């Protein structure tokens, strides 16, 4: 679906595909009802409209009909019965699944206005761009999401993978996905969560199994390979470590271990900046550090009033965080 990359009917994962089948069934049933009832309305209006040749007499008065009333009560009852049973089965097939032993666990924590992503089994912490393995329908390796919130209510929605589940503070929610086709799937926060609700975007990368392993290997916390020969990078690291950046951001191997903002250890492995507010590039990074509100008005990162030189050095440092 090049045209509409978040089409709910272009499902590539189990909950979304089961949902899409159910949805098409419900659409067919309601569509049929629409044509019958709307058709009757049109027929009534056209057939019984008053003609120019009308004699001015009142039509015969009919007050009701028990047979008709019974008929148009029983038929909807039957339709409701069919819809309820079908829907209940699909609810069961999505919510009733127990977590298989080989599932990948991810804890998703909603923040105003970005996503914290933690893989407890793999020791990975990242943000905004979720990476998961393809799940072979014959030997499924679904991804199990535990949904939490650090502040207000958010909602996790990647339409081609699954419907929404909310992330609510002081509450633990779960959902799962089992994508069957590699690719990048987009979505975004779907519960109004304040000023930048619109720029709380999500990307899910579905990798073939071996590619996922390589990604996970590269992401495992550890020293970022800082080529310390470069003066600018060393200086940039110093700027980072001697400013409040470290209170809000973690970079493994530095003194930065803040958790208020996204983990930056592998920043450059992401394609976007600040939950999709801009593509990630040296220019946008520079603009972001100079004034986060210029890119994402209201974002909870302050403009640090650094000099242009400091910003340049910082960006040189950040660019090494692969």
């Amino acid at each position, binding site marked *: 679906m090049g045209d509409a990359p978040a089409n709910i009917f272009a499902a590539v994962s189990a909950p979304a595909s089961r949902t899409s089948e159910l949805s098409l069934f419900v659409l067919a049933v*309601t569509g049929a009802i629409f044509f019958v009832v709307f058709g009757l309305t049109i027929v009534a209006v056209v057939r019984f*409209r008053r003609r120019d040749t009308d004699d001015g007499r009142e039509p015969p008065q009919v007050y009701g009909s028990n047979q008709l009333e019974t008929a148009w009560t029983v038929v909807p009852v039957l339709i*409701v019965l069919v819809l309820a049973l079908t829907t209940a089965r699909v609810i069961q097939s999505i919510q009733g699944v127990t977590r298989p032993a080989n599932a990948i666990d991810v804890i998703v924590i909603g923040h105003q206005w970005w996503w914290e992503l933690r893989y407890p089994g793999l020791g990975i912490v990242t943000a905004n761009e979720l990476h998961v393995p393809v799940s072979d329908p014959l030997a499924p390796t679904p991804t199990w999401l535990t949904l939490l919130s650090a502040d207000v209510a958010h909602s996790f*929605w990647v339409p081609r993978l699954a419907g929404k589940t909310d992330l609510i503070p002081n*509450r633990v929610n779960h959902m799962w996905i089992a994508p069957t086709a590699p690719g990048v799937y987009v979505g975004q926060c779907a519960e109004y969560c304040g*000023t930048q*609700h619109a720029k709380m975007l999500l990307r899910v990368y579905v990798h073939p199994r071996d590619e996922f392993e390589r990604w996970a290997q590269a992401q495992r916390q550890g020293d970022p390979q800082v080529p310390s020969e470069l003066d600018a990078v060393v200086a940039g690291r110093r700027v980072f470590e001697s400013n409040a950046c470290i209170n809000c951001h973690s970079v493994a191997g530095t003194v930065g271990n803040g958790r208020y903002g996204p983990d930056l250890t592998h920043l450059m492995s992401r394609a976007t900046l600040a939950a999709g507010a801009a593509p990630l590039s040296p220019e946008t990074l520079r603009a972001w550090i100079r004034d986060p509100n210029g890119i994402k008005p209201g974002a909870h990162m302050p403009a640090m009033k650094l000099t242009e030189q400091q910003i340049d050095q910082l960006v040189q440092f950040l660019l090494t965080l692969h």
Partner: protein
Amino acid sequence: MTGEAAVTTREVEARFWQRLHEWIVTVDHKRLGVMYVLYALLFLLIGGSEALLIRLQLVAPHNTLLAPQTFNRLFTLHGTTMVFFVGMPLIFGFANYLVPLMIGARDMAFPRLNAFSFWMSAFAGLLLYFSFLGAEGLYGAGSAPDVGWFAYAPLTSRAFSRGHSTDYWILSIFLSGVGSIGTAVNIITTVLSRRCPGMTLGKLPLLCWFYVVDSVLVLVGVPPLAAAQLMLLADRFLGAHFFDTQAGGSAVLWQHFFWIFGHPEVYILMIPGWAFASEIIPVFSRKAIFGYPVLVGAVIAIGFVSLSVWAHHMFAVGMSMTANTFFMVATLLVGIPTGIKIFNWIGTMWGGKIRLATPMLFCIAFIGQFLIAGLTGIMLAAVPFNWQLTDSTFVVAHFHFMLVGSLLFTVFAAFYYWFPKVTGRMLDEKLGKLHFWLFLVGFHLTFTVMHIPGLLGMPRRIYTYEPGRGWETLNLVITIGAFFQAAGVACFLVNLVRSLHKGKLAGPDPWDAWTLEWSTSSPPPEYNFAVVPTVRSRRPLWDLKHPEDPDWVYE
């Protein structure tokens, strides 16, 4: 010469103040009804302008017309205004005016409570907008509320909503609730105790039946909301922790409270629409309403079921499978009495001689649009489908089919139908038809199309969106539709103002109708009926006009 002129100016002035005074201190149900409706129209213009701004911002991706916070305030005000300060006063205005007239009474049961309720609602609306001036607070973070019309916790807590905008929102909704409860009590009492001789409950005009059910829903639904507002106020000012998640409070609790009100509220707003349609469709089809007892039964059934479906707004909060299934079934059940009603309206038209005057045009469009709203409601009830659709533009389209496509269309029908009674003059048919077609085209450009971006993954309440998701053209069309609707409303307002002075004289019964309000002059005298009428059937004026074939023989 100059002295004389001075005297007349002073006289005119004095008369103006006297008339204003009369209106302000009035307890007459008709004047209060008119005031409710005018007040609603004023807020309709405000809420409508907010909608136009929202649509202008969304006309293209990455548009920068409005700042994010401005946009968030606009949709919060738009929703709150339209539900509490347009919808509610409109339905109460019509109830006030019509219920006593239709049951042959001289006023509501509690005229002073009636005036009190009106002024409470009126001040509540002003309080909401006073937020613009008063909300700055200590942090300078004020201005209008930006928490959304259902104000999910904990976004409304002090930590996330500084200043006083949320407090104004809380107080204004609380006050409007006080007004609504007063009016509901009044309507129920009036219908139960003020009917004219001969009017048994089985002969009560359908409109009055529907309003009784409606008022019962107000009495059940509004107090939980008022309670929740007080709890929220306690959280914000007294250090309570009902919804304060950081201190162990529950965000989901607020959602339950809100929707225990919010779902019945949908029906509170919609039942009067059905009431108007059930009065207008028979008169313009020249036939008695088809299946009167079944319609009464259906609306009572809907009233009951609507109390047990609130959590269908919460399928995505992670409820248990059992709860999800229960609320799915309960919601689907609403479809049955709803279907019955539509069939009875079609049954009324069937075999009649349909006059396609403006009120009827709005009613016919209403049937089609209400049907669609019901069917998308079924889609939203199918829980997994709901997980995709909820909080997307699809759901926005769905409830605008209800509130605009169904309620507002029947309200317009009601305006064209009862305006002659209220003012003694007809609304202009040509302008009326122009109003109808502009609004119909605009409505479908906007809201039929709005379903699709939701299916393509577009959430609601976003101030901007990414290009390349297949949403651009759709949003452009939606915005164009909004301006067609605005043009339609402009025609309507011009029509109201012009017809007030220039409209054709109506006479007591311009539509050849059958209920009691058409038996008195237009506008009715202050005491409504010189002699309290006595009725023998549901259509007293039909009996009068057709003594050879009266209704009471069959009922």
